[in-house]
């Protein structure tokens, strides 16, 4: 049986108030938030009631007051309309209501929804209030007639947006875009930093799922959210770089972080801001993790990462470089005064591709992540005539584009599925092709032949696509008899990475998954060992920078709760609710995205100069003006 008494979610009205048995509301109707049942909820897309005792006019007034906080006031109808609604409801509650009030409220709501400038005013601000008035009119009439008093209750509320919900770290994207629009680049950057402590890095190398979720895709094209973040970061750096605030009052407790990648840096930054003493142990001579040694300079210049790490160090985070933790010795860490440990060691070891010749130690048959790391740390790599790269992810593309820049004449990628299944970013693939990388689809390696320790030939087999596998992508099936040999001097295998957990002696104690990653709670980031937390690629397997930052942001809060013996309170999760949908009307004029310049493909070879340009400040402001500010609000009891 359904628990829904009434729902107008997404405009589908289900009224069980007089029904003998409650009909099911169907999927996507929010009756629970973070696993807790709600009695009544008002949100951007409707009203949901499960408890007959819920006071809808009180909820509506609470909703209006929260909406008032989100309304920017930059157009004359939304905020004033909300104010007028609040005034009318307060009047009604004070016994001064009129019979005509409800009709007047409906008129204001419809007008504001039609006339507002942004999507918040057009839908989220008042749509559910209209549902309340329409379907719970008796309660409002009773209020207007003085027969009913408003309950004095406190309601919970949360805010999201399609882009925010799509962002693994839930950045306040409309917020920082609005600050750019108002020419407040540094304020914008500080808002970004609350959840993304590597803004220049993420502004360049993020996979930006937010942009796929952008409502503007339905109108013209997405906001360039990633580039706007980069604009805020670059603007600040050009002005000399602002500091990261000051830490709270010093706390006596110390935390050890293993790995100075995005997850470790985010954890360290937030704990330091809370006043903890933090030391990061980093095996490599530089910080940034995969951002530094996994993404080549032409996509993400080193000085950008180093600047952002310097700011974190200036805050008082101690980073010990060239300090590989060979053995996780908790007793020793305790003796050094560390009360908690965060493991953010990443996933830096290439996985086997399962082809003959792989086991032989050969300098010309290398792992993608290793190749990029060596290159990044300054190893001299002599260009050869031909290199074959195996894999279809971003690491494969990064290897290929790096090889071209190193002077390799013939650079070929082999991928066992087709372009459609390729996990690398479309933009990256386009750039690679534009620069002269060749990609062969539906081909997998069988054997790599070597002579006198040098790669000479690769044997490959053609594939066809079968039924989708558990990843949802169509499974490649070998075509017997399609084998062919091709000469090559180098092979780079870039088919994935796993964490190097050799430093953990007792793997059963901490818990390791079948994927070779550390078992950690996805909400609290706790491992099975008390006081040890883990996040980022070493838990998720090779994932994105922004997911690693998210892990660090949350792990820091969880570690803080642990150290203070408090219960960790995770944020509100909108999982299972379609935040993309909204009942919105009105005309939005099309306006194309502001474009940035790219380095001419003809001059990219032989140079690791950054390929993508950034926005100038006026350009960034113009792009920011395209934001529809699709804040989604929910208020519930």
């Amino acid at each position, binding site marked *: 049986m359904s628990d829904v008494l009434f729902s107008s979610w997404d405009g589908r009205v289900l009224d069980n108030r007089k029904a003998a048995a409650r009909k099911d509301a169907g999927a996507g109707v929010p009756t629970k938030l973070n696993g807790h049942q709600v009695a009544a909820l008002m949100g951007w897309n409707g009203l949901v009631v499960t408890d007959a005792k819920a006071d809808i006019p009180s909820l509506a007034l609470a909703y209006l007051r929260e909406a008032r906080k989100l309304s920017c*006031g930059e*157009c004359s109808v939304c905020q004033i309309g909300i104010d007028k609604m609040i005034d009318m409801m307060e009047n009604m509650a004070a016994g001064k209501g009129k019979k005509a009030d409800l009709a007047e409220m409906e008129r204001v709501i419809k007008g504001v929804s039609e006339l507002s400038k942004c999507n918040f005013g057009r839908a989220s601000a008042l749509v559910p209030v209209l549902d309340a008035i329409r379907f719970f009119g008796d309660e409002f009439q009773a209020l207007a007639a003085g027969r009913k008093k408003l309950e004095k209750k406190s309601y919970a509320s949360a805010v999201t947006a399609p882009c925010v919900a799509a962002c693994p770290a839930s950045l306040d994207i409309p917020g920082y875009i609005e600050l750019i629009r108002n020419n407040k680049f540094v304020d914008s950057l500080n808002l970004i930093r609350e959840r993304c402590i590597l803004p220049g890095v993420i502004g360049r190398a993020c996979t930006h799922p937010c942009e796929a979720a952008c409502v503007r895709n339905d109108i013209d094209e997405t906001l360039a959210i990633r580039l706007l973040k980069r604009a805020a970061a670059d603007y600040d750096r050009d002005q000399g770089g602002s500091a990261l605030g000051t830490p709270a009052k010093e706390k006596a407790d110390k935390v050890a972080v293993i790995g100075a990648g995005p997850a470790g840096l985010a954890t360290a930054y937030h704990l330091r801001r809370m006043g903890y003493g933090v030391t990061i142990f980093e095996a490599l001579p530089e910080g940034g993790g995969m951002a530094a040694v996994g993404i080549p300079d032409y996509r993400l210049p080193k000085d950008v990462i180093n600047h952002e790490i310097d700011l974190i160090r200036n805050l008082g985070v101690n980073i010990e470089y060239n300090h590989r933790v060979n053995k996780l010795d908790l007793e020793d860490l305790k003796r050094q005064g560390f009360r908690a440990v965060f493991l953010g060691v990443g996933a830096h070891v290439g996985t086997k591709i399962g082809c003959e010749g792989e086991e032989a130690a050969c300098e010309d048959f290398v792992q993608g992540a290793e190749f990029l790391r060596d290159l990044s740390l300054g190893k001299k790599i002599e260009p050869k005539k031909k290199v074959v790269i195996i894999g279809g992810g971003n690491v494969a593309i990064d290897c290929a584009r790096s090889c071209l820049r190193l002077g390799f004449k013939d650079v070929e990628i082999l991928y066992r599925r087709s372009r459609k299944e390729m996990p690398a970013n479309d933009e990256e693939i386009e750039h690679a092709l534009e620069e002269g990388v060749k990609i062969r689809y539906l081909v997998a390696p069988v054997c790599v032949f070597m002579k006198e320790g040098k790669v000479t030939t690769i044997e490959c087999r053609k594939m066809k696509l079968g039924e989708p596998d558990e990843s949802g992508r169509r499974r490649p099936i070998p075509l017997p008899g399609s084998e062919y040999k091709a000469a090559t001097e180098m092979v780079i295998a870039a088919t994935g990475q796993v964490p190097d957990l050799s430093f953990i002696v007792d793997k059963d104690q901490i818990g390791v998954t079948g994927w070779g990653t550390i078992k950690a709670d996805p909400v609290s980031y706790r491992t099975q060992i008390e006081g040890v937390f883990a996040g980022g690629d070493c838990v998720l397997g090779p994932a994105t920078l922004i997911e690693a930052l998210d892990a660090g942001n949350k792990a820091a809060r969880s570690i803080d709760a642990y150290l203070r013996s408090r219960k960790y309170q995770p944020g509100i999760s909108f999982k299972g609710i379609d935040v993309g949908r909204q009942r919105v009307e009105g005309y939005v004029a099309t306006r194309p995205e502001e474009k940035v310049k790219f380095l001419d493909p003809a001059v990219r070879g032989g140079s690791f100069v950054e390929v993508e340009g950034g926005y100038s400040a006026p350009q960034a402001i113009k792009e920011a003006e395209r934001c529809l500010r699709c804040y989604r609000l929910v208020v519930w009891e």
Partner: protein
Amino acid sequence: MITIKIDGRKVKAKEGATVLQAAQESRIEIPTLCSYKDLSPFGACRLCVVEVKANGKWQLATSCDAPVKEGMEVRTKTDRVREGRKLAAELLYYRYPTTGAVRDIAKKLGVDVAEGKAGDHDCILCGLCTRTCHEVVGVDALTFMDRGPGRKLDQPKIEYIADACIGCGSCAFICPTGFVKMEDKGNQRTVWGKNFKMETCGVCGRYFAPVDQLQWISKKTGVPYEKLKTCTSCR
């Protein structure tokens, strides 16, 4: 040139023009408080709404920020347009009942405006001053204060950044309600509460521009300060 239809009439418009501009060129009157010909559209007052046919449906759209498109159909005189404009004016009047400029336009658009005190000059957040300062003057001394989740500002307002201001007075010139006050008294100009020393014209001897503004122009253009000390009438 692009041809669009306004109220059934064929109207020619320049590529990149807005519906508002196309209408104004054809002497079709559309009310507005926040648009100005030399500034980019902002869509704050919502008074300029018209109906635009999109996806086969007539939809309300602000004409100031809607670019013309070949074959576009626009209506400016329907009941829906009139009601929309009236509600926008009504809400402005609800917030600023004693501001003359608001009262005038509200009355014109059919709002029942009560007799009474009309001498106030509230800021209606039209954004004309911020856009002038950013786009025309180029100093960014005026911006909107930001509101949103986690930000504490209760009432939106314009932030004045005194250090950036050169005292040119463009904001006072463009302000539709008289909220931005500027006073010239002898060798001193006061705007947004900040005092500026005025320069005298080398020819006629009158005070004509703030020293800060001339210094800023000199720095920006490379023209020596002394050469700028002639007022527009004497140039």
